[in-house]
């Protein structure tokens, strides 16, 4: 049987809103908050009252793929308090009060990347706690610590979710650092070449013009179709190399990194700046102003929203969504007072007055969701099976393959909440398997 090509759906981008808006830097927040039990329990290395430098280890994630968490600012450690986290939970966080001195630790000063070996570079990634900033937050060094031959390093600049332009803005402002980061990522993996994959759409022409002259001999640009989910690792690899793989991209001889990760790595090697900041997009029709802001990890979103004059005065907040992350995979937050993390790319405020209280039809079984599922599932069937709670049947329907891209709910003509049912089904299967 011929392999089914991945479905390609164009989604309206709404990216002009934030691109045409303000581009700000906000690198001196009053204090930053670092979660102590996300993604799992972390061991804390500092006591309250101690002064820490920017880049000093605050916490360590133990175990396989462990990594340190560095302080993004210099200042004083305060008591642990509970704050809203982008996962929509209130979790304990260490507060670090800023002393506005921006004092860096010595570890990463005067790095000489020219003379560094592959192992040195991987160790820098490890010591600096560099995380994938596309969303999954997988430690970057884990991708490079491999014995398998690497053919290509792909920089994922697809940014396929609507509204978000944080990678775009970072690359626009730091193109040299991107190329620098990619250069040493190639070195760290012994790859033959590097590819920057970005979408073929009008707004990206500016990036292409900037990046083209900077590319080195073993680097190239690759244009993806303007579809969703073009930024999905599997999609990018299949398009760029034509290969598919089992579990990890390394099986296809490829390492994929997000563009912001590459820039952060580039700045770490070039300026000694520890991974501590990234651009975040603030946008949506409920915001007074839209744009991008360069912010420290752990900044309270409240402060960032104030830079854009907060949500509009006339907006009824109970009829407005405060989305943390992209509109397809993000969470609606209870409160606008949560803290940012390295994987957070955007905060989107959307008005919902017109949709509240509307009555939608039942699923009409048109199969549109199945047609558009990137992993060949049939969401409508899984939803029906979920009601009977038949776990074996759910597994047979492939629920464990679901990537929660949100495509099924997006294309449904009846507004059926398929994606959340898929998540419930996936969690049910995982619980029963245990």
């Amino acid at each position, binding site marked *: *049987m011929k392999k089914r090509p991945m479905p390609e759906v164009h989604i309206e981008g709404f990216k002009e809103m934030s691109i045409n808006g303000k581009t700000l830097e906000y690198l001196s927040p009053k204090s930053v908050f670092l979660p102590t039990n996300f993604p799992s329990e972390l061991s804390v290395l500092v006591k309250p009252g101690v002064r820490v430098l920017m880049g000093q280890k605050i916490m360590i994630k133990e175990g396989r793929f462990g990594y340190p968490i560095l302080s993004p600012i210099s200042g004083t450690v305060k008591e642990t308090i509970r704050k809203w986290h982008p996962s929509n939970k209130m979790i304990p966080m260490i507060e670090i009060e800023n002393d506005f001195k921006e004092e860096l630790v010595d570890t990463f000063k005067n790095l000489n990347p020219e003379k560094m070996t592959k192992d040195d570079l991987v160790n820098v990634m490890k010591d600096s706690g560099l995380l994938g900033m596309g969303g999954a937050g997988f430690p970057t060094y884990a991708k490079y610590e491999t014995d398998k031959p690497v053919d290509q390093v792909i920089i994922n600049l697809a940014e396929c979710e609507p509204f978000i332009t944080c990678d775009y803005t970072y690359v626009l402002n730091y193109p040299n650092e991107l190329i620098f980061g990619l250069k040493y990522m190639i070195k760290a993996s012994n790859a033959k070449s590097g590819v920057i994959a970005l979408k073929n759409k009008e707004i990206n022409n500016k990036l292409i013009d900037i990046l083209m002259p900077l590319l080195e001999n073993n680097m190239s640009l690759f244009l993806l179709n303007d579809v969703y989910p073009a930024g999905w690792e599997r999609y990018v690899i299949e398009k760029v190399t034509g290969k598919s793989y089992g579990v990890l991209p390394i099986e296809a001889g490829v390492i994929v990194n997000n563009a912001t990760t590459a820039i952060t790595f580039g700045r770490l090697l070039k300026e000694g700046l520890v991974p501590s900041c990234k651009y975040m997009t603030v946008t949506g029709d409920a915001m007074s102003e839209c744009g991008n802001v360069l912010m420290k990890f752990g900044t309270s979103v409240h402060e960032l929203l104030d830079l854009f004059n907060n949500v509009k005065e006339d907006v009824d907040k109970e009829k407005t969504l405060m989305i943390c992350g992209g509109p397809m995979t993000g969470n609606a937050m209870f*409160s606008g007072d949560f803290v940012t993390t390295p994987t957070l790319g955007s905060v989107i405020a959307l008005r919902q007055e017109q949709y509240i209280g509307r009555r939608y*039809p039942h699923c*009409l079984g*048109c*199969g549109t969701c199945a047609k558009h599922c990137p992993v060949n599932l049939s969401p409508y069937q899984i939803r029906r099976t979920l009601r009977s709670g038949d776990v074996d049947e759910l597994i047979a329907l492939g629920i464990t*393959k679901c990537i929660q891209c949100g495509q099924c709910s997006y294309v449904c003509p009846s507004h059926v909440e398929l994606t959340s049912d898929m998540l419930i089904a996936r969690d049910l299967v995982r619980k029963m398997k245990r």
Partner: protein
Amino acid sequence: MEKYLVIKGPYLRSADITKRNTSTIMRDVLIALLPSIAFAIYKNVVLVLINGIYSSIYHAIYPIITLILAPLTSLICEAISLWVMKKRGIKTFKDLVEELKVSYGIFPGLFIVLISPTYIPLWVLLVSVAVGEVVGKMLFGGFGQNIFNPALVGRAFMAFTFSSHLGDAYLTSYELTIDAYSAATPLTSYAKAGAASIDIVNNYGGMFNLLIGNYPGALGETSTIAILIGAIYLIIKDVIDWRIPVVYLGTMFFITMIIGFIMGQGLWFPLFQILTGGVAFGAVFMATEPVTSPKTHLGRIMYALLLGELTVLFRLVGNMPEGVATSIVTMNIVGLMINKYVTKLRVEDKLTKKNCYGLVIFLVFFVLLFVYDVVMGVK
């Protein structure tokens, strides 16, 4: 602390952005039915009035009355069922009205009247509509939850319960005066005839007339050309998958062609089989109904192949005039199994020894039915 709205994601919906949602899909179906409805009114009302052969004005405009009353009955039954069952959080009258807007209650009634004999007694029609609507749709849980096509449930109920009322009800008062229309419809003529002969086609004004649809038959089913216009509209609007009608009609054409050749007849025989009765209407509007047909390409092709064979079976072997309705209702159940199998096949994305059982069963059934059709269909 300010509180924002919390709902489940994703927060963008193509239904909101592109304005293509279930309601516009159902509206497209209604638009696609317009040519058939227009032709039905032309043939059964306008032509009768022009020729001036009618007993009373009520009798002359009777088709229009049924076209209005049947959807209305179906809508009322829907409202009563919803109110009695109190599903989907219906508490006030306003909820009910809102729910009726998204449960599309007129469709079963509209479809039933279009596939019923034109002059069916009003009470028979309305009882059938009520049965189709309540038993076929609401008892299963309403729109989108039904296993069988509600319209065909009502039509099958009509065929098996009130069969004595159906025979004469096909002909308009004008058509009753034409001697050539010995039996009611071309299909009943063929069923009564001792042997296949092209005379049947000629009695009904030739092949071209069968295509246009000016011959006795069910209200909306006779004009293949009007149905074809609707089909093209639906395919362009991506409401139906072309695979089902094309494969269905193709299968029927192929099998009846073989049967025709064995009987020493030409190509008129398969064309006659496709152009008459509810085949075209069933292929375009009934077999493709999203709720009850399989959702994947492979599943749809398997479904349509078996459907074609079953229709030939019921029509030529079983000598049942309502072969299309019965075969589609039968295939609704088989389609469930096909869909389940194909869904799992798609997840694995390759054919292995372990998961090819369904295709093998399908092929065995397909070949057996094919042989049976050809052997028994010859007369």
